[in-house]
């Protein structure tokens, strides 16, 4: 869910878990806890939103939401109308099917220490982009000193940033090439765009930097008008932070309180 949330009725009940941003969730009128399994009685109603802090709240349902996987994924690609539920965002009165849950669902809560460690950051760590040399020295320094604002025209394909404009010398000289999730492209008008989950796979604008893997989850929590800064780090640091995060996420001993 993004920013606004929604209301969900579970005719046969379910076990769910809420993670991500705080959307002031209530279950049948009572405040619902996050980061732990939540048992919903038959005809129970979960009401979420709007957000109290970050951009996205995730509702996980035991047994899984049943959609036909597309390319091995249950995600929706809005631009092409593929995958997920009818290839589009959910609307009022949609009915989602839920799979059979596991027989035993352990009741555990994500620890405070883990939540703190994975708290969305305001300063995103980046490595240098492949076209960093196309940007004059003073502009690069300015890029890392500036605070940007997430534009309201941002969507799942890219987060458009407002603020200090960048002008690359080599505009036009670059040949379109592959671009990864988290790449920060700079358009001819000087606007940086961070490629997001529904990104194009190639790009012809120079890339000044790349958000590191361990901070990609923070991109999904940036709201329109949120402020963000970038801090340069080395590839070696980026790799070790990523490995550390991946290890943490598969370690029940460290994840749960």
């Amino acid at each position, binding site marked *: 869910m993004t920013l606004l949330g929604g209301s969900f009725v579970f005719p046969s009940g379910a076990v769910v878990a809420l993670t991500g941003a705080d959307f002031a969730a209530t279950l049948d009128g009572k405040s619902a806890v996050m980061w732990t399994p939540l048992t919903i009685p038959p005809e129970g109603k979960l009401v979420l939103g709007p957000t109290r802090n970050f951009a996205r709240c995730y509702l996980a349902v035991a047994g899984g939401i049943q959609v036909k996987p*597309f390319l091995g994924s249950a995600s929706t*690609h809005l*631009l*092409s*109308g*593929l995958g997920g539920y009818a290839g589009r965002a959910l609307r009022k009165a949609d009915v989602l099917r839920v799979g059979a849950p596991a027989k035993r669902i352990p009741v555990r809560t994500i620890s405070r220490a883990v939540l703190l460690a994975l708290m969305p950051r305001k300063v995103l760590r980046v490595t240098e982009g*492949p076209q960093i040399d196309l940007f004059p020295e003073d502009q690069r320094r300015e890029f890392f000193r500036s605070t940007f604002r997430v534009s309201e025209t941002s969507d799942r394909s890219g987060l458009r940033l407002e603020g200090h404009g960048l002008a690359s010398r080599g505009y036009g000289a670059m*040949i*379109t*090439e*592959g*671009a*990864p999730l988290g790449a920060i492209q700079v358009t001819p008008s000087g606007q940086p765009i961070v490629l997001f989950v529904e990104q*194009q*796979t*190639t790009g012809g604008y120079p890339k000044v930097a790349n958000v590191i*893997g361990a901070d990609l989850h923070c991109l999904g929590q940036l709201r329109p008008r949120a402020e963000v800064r970038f801090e340069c780090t080395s*590839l070696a640091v980026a*790799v070790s932070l*990523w*490995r550390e995060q*991946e290890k943490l996420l598969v370690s029940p001993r460290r994840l749960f309180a």
Partner: protein
Amino acid sequence: VLVYLGEEIGLPAHRRVLKLLQLLQKEPPKWLRNLQPAYTSLMVTFDACRVDSAEVEAELRKYEARAKTVRGVKPRTVLIPVCYGGEFGPDLDAVAKIHGLKSYEVIAHHTSQSYHAYFLGFAPGFAYLGDVPEAIATPRLETPRKQVAKGSVGIAGRQTAVYPFATPGGWRLIGRTPMSMFQNDRKPMARISVGDEVRFRMISRQEFLELESG
């Protein structure tokens, strides 16, 4: 990792990209996650938990050396029917005017040769085709359209492409095809694959409507 195999858009550099792509697809290293070819480069995505980037680079150098001996596959030919101009190609007349040509001359140029499919990007099934004859090469629109109709055929510089979906887009639209460029119940899903040779064939409005409904 981005592997650069040339500094100029053209067939020589792209043949090197295709050969390395083929070899990596045939004998994928265990750390490989994704391959994204482009005009002169190949983006190789790897699992950073399984391997160090130095090792990836060293292995890719070996692949690159071996790729030189890979025999290129004979390209498939894809023929795309296009109804040019009118409501289907709102920029045809403007493209003609820019080059001091008649509209039918632009169509004649566009259908005169086959195009090489360099890579797919932007949207599922969107193939970047080149090289468009210099005589009709036209820069993108100053302001992109918010919505381009599905099947639209556009020109951007010396590239041409078909929009597989209704998306925003800044290419100059000269026609439209009734052929579906992406279908998720077909294998491969995209009509055009990297390395294919693509030709355009002019059809009438009547033929367009028949093909579209058939």
